[in-house]
């Protein structure tokens, strides 16, 4: 089957080259049939890469270790659930995933625009096939997922234990969907500039894709944060790591674009800004992939090698130079059709929000690429840490949350001060009330967190007021009951109210971030069974050690050979709160030098966190058992000397028993963190709001609304 995979890649490359040529020839000579053939090249690419992906997936599921990538990233002991996801844990597999998702999304976008904007779509086709061709070339020339070894090794190295976590099944596809979706607005934006058709039509065509990119990228980022919190054993969800930042940057510029595109749709303004945001978002998405895949910056999430750096740098250079050339050379046709009517208008707030979002992106960009910049300028690699990022991003995030509360209560075009004052009464009162309550409660020592809680309350007030007034207006017009009026209001104004729900979600999320990062209690210490410690308001007692051997009995279902843990009793004011079972998994390695027993547990140990998560607080625990004691080491040494590979697991059984009978002091990490759940809940609310906003209006409603609007315009016509 590897031959079929290799054939698919070569065929995919040929199709990409043909499609680019056919699309460009078609659009330059107005030969529609060639443009059409170019579009079908994208569909063909999707079919070919689907077959290629299926071949690789089958190889993983069937433990076909003749495939190098299967042997490197999977094993018989890797649970089936994770074997299916191991495809994208390797460099080669993730490149294939990228190209495959790109071909699917590009096919969808080009299918939906097949009868419109032929010239723009033809250029977009060529650009999308250019991206496809780039990734397929990487696989053909640098990282072929279908390379084989003969004879096949009897066993594989296994999936990186860090990746054996349920959300890792969907985190990379979500993130890559976001990245690949970002290239669709970029391709259409470039196509519109090349075809000199920068009207509203291309914006309308890509709006839904830009929104989908934003949703997928956001969901991917959040799933990554959740993985980090629940799996990495350090208790944090965001570490300003280069790869985390790489996904956040296009999300920020994408958020800015989703706001400013409304101004272009309504007023024909900000065309240069919008097209620049689209191009920047697409380029940042490619840069994100570059960071993960090139290994150019140190990151716990970077799974690539050094070989892909040069091709990526060339692609990014071409994208940046091409984008700048296109925007500058087409600046005349990108002139705004209108000017701002008033500084007190929603347009102005959106503009301010755009500046803050792009400012945030710039700060993160600078901090992320600082090691490269400093190395280029001084020859020494220097990097900035979380405190540097916090110093600049926290104030900007505060302004952003505040603006997300101001925007909904300001009218489009122009708002009067009197109206604005009236609309701010409820949100401001709510923010002040929150401030008073928190001050009385003694929350004073963290001013930024305090400010974030007040800003969050301000957003709840302003958005809540919008829903209330909208429902009241609807009730007055249609005489519906409040719940029905509320539902009808959202259904008829999905984008507006979906956006408001997103604002609520972001406020909830930021409150969670502010609370959990400012009011966290953390302790790291060694405990023996029977000993206790205090973490915040909680008391934690190490009751007894636990141990399981062989993947079959691994409680975390991650395929560990040995798992050592603890039973912890968590109490508060003497009352039982939870029983927690953190553990550490030990995995087999391929290092023969570790001996028959040592190699069974010589892989990278991974912590399995146990927590009591609630709406108000999380009690988070992790354990690092000591298996380097002389007694335990002696069991491994004797086993290595005396036991053949097939009996080596017996020594692991002895080791587990010895650990249970004479447990050494284990290192524990305890965290009592408030409102972490709010981050995940906020993310869910954002996702829900995004779905509401992106969901197409039912055709009947759309027709009715259009008819009503047409009648009203006709009424205007009669008056004119």
């Amino acid at each position, binding site marked *: *089957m590897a*031959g*079929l995979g290799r*054939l*698919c890649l070569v*065929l995919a490359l040929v*199709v990409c080259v043909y499609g680019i040529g*056919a699309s460009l020839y078609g659009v330059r000579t*107005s*030969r*529609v*049939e*060639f443009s059409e*053939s170019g579009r*079908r*090249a994208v*569909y*063909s690419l999707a*079919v*070919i890469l689907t*077959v290629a992906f299926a071949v690789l997936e089958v190889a993983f599921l069937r433990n076909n270790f003749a495939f190098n990538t299967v042997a490197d990233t999977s094993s018989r002991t890797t649970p089936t659930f994770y074997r299916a996801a191991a495809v994208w844990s390797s460099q080669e597999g993730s490149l294939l995933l990228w190209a495959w998702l790109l071909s699917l999304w590009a096919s969808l976008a080009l299918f939906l625009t097949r009868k*419109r*904007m*032929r010239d723009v779509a033809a250029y977009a086709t060529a650009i999308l096939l250019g991206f496809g061709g780039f990734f397929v070339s990487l696989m053909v020339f640098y990282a072929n997922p279908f390379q084989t070894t003969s004879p096949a090794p009897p066993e594989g190295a296994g999936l990186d234990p860090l990746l054996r976590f349920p959300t890792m099944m969907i985190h990379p596809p979500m993130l890559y969907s976001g990245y690949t979706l970002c290239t669709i607005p970029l391709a259409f934006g470039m196509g519109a500039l090349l075809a000199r058709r920068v*009207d*509203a*039509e291309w914006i*309308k065509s890509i709006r839904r894709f830009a929104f989908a990119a934003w949703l997928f990228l956001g969901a991917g980022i959040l799933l990554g944060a959740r993985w980090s919190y629940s799996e990495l054993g350090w208790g944090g969800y965001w570490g300003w790591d280069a790869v985390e930042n790489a996904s956040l940057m296009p999300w920020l510029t994408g958020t800015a674009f989703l706001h400013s595109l409304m101004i272009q*749709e*309504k007023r024909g303004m900000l065309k240069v800004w919008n097209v620049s945001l689209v191009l920047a978002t697409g380029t940042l998405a490619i840069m994100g992939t570059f960071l993960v895949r090139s290994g150019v910056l140190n990151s716990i999430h970077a799974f690539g090698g050094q070989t892909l750096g040069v091709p990526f740098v060339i692609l990014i250079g071409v994208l940046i130079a091409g984008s700048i050339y296109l925007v500058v050379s087409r600046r005349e046709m990108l002139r705004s059709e209108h000017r701002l009517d008033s500084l007190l208008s929603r347009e102005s707030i959106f503009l301010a929000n755009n500046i803050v979002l792009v400012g945030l992106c710039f700060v993160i960009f600078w901090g992320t690429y600082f090691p490269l910049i400093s190395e280029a300028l001084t020859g020494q690699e220097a990097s900035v840490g979380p405190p540097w990022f916090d110093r600049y991003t926290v104030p900007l995030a505060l302004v952003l949350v505040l603006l997300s509360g101001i925007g909904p*209560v*300001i*009218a*489009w*075009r*122009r*708002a*009067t001060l*009197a*109206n604005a004052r*009236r*609309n701010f009464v409820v949100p401001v009162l709510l923010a002040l009330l929150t401030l008073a309550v928190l001050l009385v409660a003694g929350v004073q020592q963290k001013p930024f967190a305090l400010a974030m809680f007040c800003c969050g309350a301000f957003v709840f007030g302003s958005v809540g007021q*919008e829903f209330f*007034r*909208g429902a009241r*207006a609807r009730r007055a*017009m249609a005489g519906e009951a409040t719940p029905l009026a509320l539902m009808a209001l959202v259904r008829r*104004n999905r984008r*507006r109210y979906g956006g408001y729900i997103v604002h609520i979600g972001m406020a909830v999320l930021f409150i969670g971030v502010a609370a959990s990062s400012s009011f966290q209690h953390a302790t790291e210490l060694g405990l023996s069974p029977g000993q206790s410690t205090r973490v915040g308001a909680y008391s934690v007692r190490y009751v007894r050690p636990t141990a399981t051997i062989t993947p079959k009995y691994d409680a975390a279902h991650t395929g560990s050979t040995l798992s050592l843990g603890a039973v912890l009793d968590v109490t508060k004011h003497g009352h039982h709160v939870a029983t927690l079972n953190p553990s550490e998994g030990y995995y087999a390695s391929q290092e023969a030098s570790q001996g028959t027993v040592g190699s069974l547990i010589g892989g990278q140990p991974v912590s399995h966190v146990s927590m009591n998560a609630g709406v108000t607080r999380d009690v988070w625990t992790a354990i690092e058992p000591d298996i380097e004691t002389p007694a335990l080491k002696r069991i491994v040494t004797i086993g290595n000397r005396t036991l053949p590979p097939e009996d080596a697991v017996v020594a692991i059984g002895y080791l587990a028993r010895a650990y249970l009978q004479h447990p050494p002091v284990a290192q524990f990490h305890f965290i009592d963190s408030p409102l972490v759940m709010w981050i995940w809940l906020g993310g869910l609310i954002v996702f829900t709001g995004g779905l509401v906003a992106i969901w197409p209006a039912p055709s009947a409603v759309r027709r009715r*609304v*259009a008819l009503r*609007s*047409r009648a*009203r*315009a006709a*009424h*205007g*016509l009669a*008056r*004119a």
Partner: protein
Amino acid sequence: MSVLVVVIAVALLAVVVYLLSAPLRTARTPQDAEVVQAAEERASVQHELEVAREAKYREIRDAELDYRTGKLSREDYESVDDALRAEAVEILDRLEGAERG
């Protein structure tokens, strides 16, 4: 290489060739192409105006919602609404002209 792999490879190749060549097999004459292009350009202008019309209708609805939720005073709403309707009427005129050809 097993028979199955050969069959899949040949089928894949056939699908790709069929997909890519379908538009070329029904190639048009230059005159046909000009007619099609002219029609597409007309349709494109029309579609662009329809997009503008939908956006304007949305703006009219948004202004009404802004007024009903207390964000616009009556005077401001009437002035904005009048301006929007005038713009909508202009788009409708242009659309009518485009539809007449």
